[in-house]
C-alpha cells in the first residue's frame, strides 16, 4: 500500500471518530455536525474572553466606535504649531489624495492644512471627503493608569492575601479533620460526618444575615479575616480529603507507631505526603473559589481600601461614568490567575471534577 499523502492523512485524522464503526474513510453527516459543534463551541467559549482582551487595548475613542474593529486602532497625529493634530487622507477636487492634518472642525466643514507646509493656505473640506489615517496601537496606559490612579494595586494585594491565606488554612484544617475522620475510630465519628455532609447543602446565601452578625460580633467586620475565616471550614474539602485518605493503608501508620512516631508526625510525614494528589486538587479549587468570591466580600467589606479585586471591579463598573477602557483592562488582570491555573492545571481540574463532582 502506498504511503498516504499529507492531505489523505489529515482527512483520515479528521474523520477518525468513526473508529469502531467505519474504516475512517469518508464523511458521515455526524462528522460534519461534530466539527461544526466543536469549532463553533471554541469560538463561543474562547471568543468572548479574547474579545475582552483585544478591546482592553483600545483607547476610549476606539471603544466607542461602531462597528468595532478587531484590533485596537488609533488615529495618527502630527505636530502642527506645537499641538497634536489628527491626520486624514483627503480626496481633493481633482480626485487626487493628500495627507492633511485637521486644525479645527465647524459643522460638516473641516479646516485642513498640509502638515509639511503649515504656513500654506488652510483648505476647507467637507468631512465626508476625508478618512482618518489609523495605525494599530496597543493602549498600554489602560493597564498602567489604574495602578497609579485608582486603588487597583490595593485591591490586587487584598485579593492575593485572601486567596493565599484562605487556601493555606483550608488545606491545613481540612486535612487535619479528614485525617481524624478517616484514620481513627471514635465515638461520634459518624455523627460528625453526617453533620459535615448535611452542611454541604447550606449555601452562603442562606446564612447571609446571621453570618454577617457573627462576623460583626467577633470584630471581623471590615477586615480581610472576616472574608477568609467563614470560607475555610469547607465541608467539601473535608469530604474529598477523607475519601482519599481512606485509601491509604493503615499498616503504614501502624509501622510508624512501632517506630515511636507521634500521631502528629504520622499525620505530617506519612498521610499528608501520600494525600498530595487530593490536596493539590483541593488547593487548585480553593484558589479559584476564593479568587472569584463575590457575594460574601461584598457583604463584609464596606471600606474601600479593603475591597478585593472582584468587588473593586464591580464598583467601577457600576459608577455612572463607565470608563470601559479601565474596566476591561482590570477585568483582564482579574482573569490572569485563573487563566494560568487553566493552562497549567486543566488536566487535574477536569479529572478532579469528573471524579468527585466538586466545584
Amino acid at each position: 500500500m502506498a504511503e498516504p499523502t499529507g492531505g489523505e492523512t489529515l482527512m483520515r485524522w479528521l474523520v477518525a471518530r468513526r473508529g469502531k464503526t467505519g474504516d475512517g474513510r469518508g464523511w458521515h453527516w455526524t462528522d460534519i455536525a461534530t466539527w461544526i459543534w466543536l469549532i463553533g463551541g471554541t469560538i463561543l467559549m474562547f471568543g468572548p474572553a479574547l474579545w475582552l482582551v483585544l478591546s482592553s487595548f483600545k483607547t476610549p475613542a476606539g471603544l466607542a466606535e461602531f462597528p468595532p474593529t478587531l484590533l485596537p486602532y488609533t488615529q495618527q497625529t502630527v505636530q502642527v504649531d506645537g499641538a497634536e493634530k489628527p491626520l486624514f487622507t483627503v480626496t481633493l477636487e481633482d480626485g487626487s489624495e493628500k495627507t492633511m492634518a485637521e486644525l479645527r472642525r465647524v459643522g460638516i466643514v473641516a479646516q485642513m492644512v498640509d502638515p509639511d507646509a503649515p504656513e500654506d493656505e488652510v483648505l476647507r473640506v467637507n468631512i465626508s471627503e476625508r478618512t482618518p489615517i489609523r495605525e494599530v496601537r496597543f493602549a498600554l496606559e489602560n493597564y498602567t493608569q489604574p495602578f497609579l490612579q485608582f486603588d487597583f494595586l490595593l485591591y490586587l494585594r487584598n485579593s492575593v492575601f485572601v486567596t493565599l491565606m484562605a487556601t493555606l488554612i483550608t488545606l491545613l484544617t481540612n486535612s487535619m479533620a479528614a485525617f481524624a475522620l478517616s484514620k481513627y475510630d471514635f465515638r461520634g465519628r459518624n455523627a460528625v460526618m453526617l453533620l459535615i455532609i448535611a452542611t454541604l447543602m447550606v449555601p452562603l446565601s442562606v446564612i447571609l444575615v446571621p453570618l454577617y452578625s457573627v462576623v460583626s460580633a467577633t470584630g471581623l467586620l471590615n477586615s480581610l479575616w472576616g472574608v477568609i475565616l467563614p470560607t475555610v471550614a469547607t465541608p467539601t474539602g473535608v469530604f474529598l480529603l477523607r475519601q482519599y485518605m481512606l485509601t491509604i493503608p493503615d499498616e503504614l501508620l501502624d509501622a510508624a507507631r512501632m517506630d515511636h512516631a507521634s500521631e502528629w508526625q504520622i499525620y505530617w510525614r506519612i498521610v499528608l505526603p501520600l494525600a498530595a494528589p487530593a490536596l493539590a486538587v483541593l488547593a487548585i479549587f480553593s484558589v479559584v473559589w476564593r479568587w472569584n468570591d463575590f457575594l460574601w466580600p461584598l457583604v463584609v467589606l464596606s471600606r474601600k481600601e479593603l475591597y478585593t479585586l472582584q468587588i473593586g471591579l464591580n464598583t467601577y463598573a457600576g459608577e455612572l461614568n463607565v470608563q470601559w477602557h479601565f474596566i476591561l483592562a482590570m477585568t483582564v488582570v482579574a482573569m490572569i490567575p485563573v487563566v494560568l491555573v487553566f493552562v497549567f492545571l486543566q488536566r487535574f481540574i477536569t479529572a478532579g471534577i469528573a471524579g468527585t463532582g466538586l466545584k
Partner: protein
Amino acid sequence: MQRGVSYWVMAPLRWLARMADVPLRAWQRLTGQGGMIALFLLPNMAIFTVFVLVPLVMNALYSTTGGVEFFLADRPYIGSDHYQRLLDCGSYLDPLSCRDDMFWTAVWNTARFVIFQVGSIILVAMITALILNRAIPAKAFWRAVFFFPVLLSPVVVGLIWKWILQRQGLANLGMVELGLEPVNWLTERFWAFVAAVGVSVWAHMGFYTLILLAGLQAIPRDLYEAAEMDGTPPFRVFYRITLPLLMPNLLVVLVLALIRAVQIFDEAYVLTGGGPGTSTMFITQYIYEVGFANLLRNPGLAAAASILMAGVLVVLTLIQLWLSQRAGKR
C-alpha cells in the same frame, strides 16, 4: 547547594511542624489517642461551628424578630410575622397581588430562570458530552475549551458579556450583519432575562459536560459493539443503551444544576443589577438587598426568605444524596 523554590516554601513549614511536634507529643502522652483526635478535629470544627452551625441556628431566631438592628438582643420577638408577610398573597401566581410583591417577583423570576437555565444546560451539556465522547482527535483540548468559562469569576463573566451585549457591542454588530434590528439586550425586560439565562448557561455548562462525559466513558464498549453486530440504528442505540445507562449521572447533573440555579446571584447582578425594573431580580439578590441595603433593611425578613429558600434546597439536596447513593450502589 542549589535549592528550588519548593524548598524555600517547604522548609519553614517543615521547621514549624517539627517545633509543633514537641508540645503535641507531650499532649499525646497526657491524653492518649482521644486527645489527639480532638486536637486534629478542633480547628476545623471550631471554625465550622462558629461560621456555619451557629449562623444556621441564629437564622431561625432572626426570622422571628423584627427591627433593623443586627445585634440579636436588640431585636424584639414578633413571631411568624415575617413568614405571614412573605406568604400573604391574593394569588400566588400574581406577584402584584402579594403583600411583599418584590419577594414573589424574585420567586417567579427564579423559577423561570431555573426552568430555562437548567433545561438549556442539560441539553447543551448532553450534546457536547456525546460529541466529546466520539473518537475525535485532541480530546483533552476540546474538553478544556468547553470547561474554560467555569473557572472565570462571576464578575469577569458578567463584565465580559456586559461589554458584548451593550447597545454598541459585538452582539448587536452581529445582529446588524445578519440584517436584523439591533437589540437592547440589557435594558429590555425580556432580553435582559434571556441574557441572564444565556450567560449563566455559557458560564456553567462545561462543568456538567465533564460529569456527563465521565458517565459516558463508564458505559462498557461491548454493549455498543453488540448493538452494532445486530445492526441497531444509531438512534435506538442512544435510546436503549446510552440514555438508560447514563440516567444516574443525568439525574445527579439535573439536581446539582437545580441547586445552583436556585441560588443564582453574582453573574446576573453584575450583568443587569437585577434590572431593568425587577425583571432579573432573583431570590438571593432579594435576600441581599433586604438584608443589607440601607433603605429597606430588614434582616428578619431576609432571614425568613432565606429559610424558605433553604427549604427548597434541602429537598433538592436530599434527592441528590439519595440519587448519588443509589448510583454508587449500582
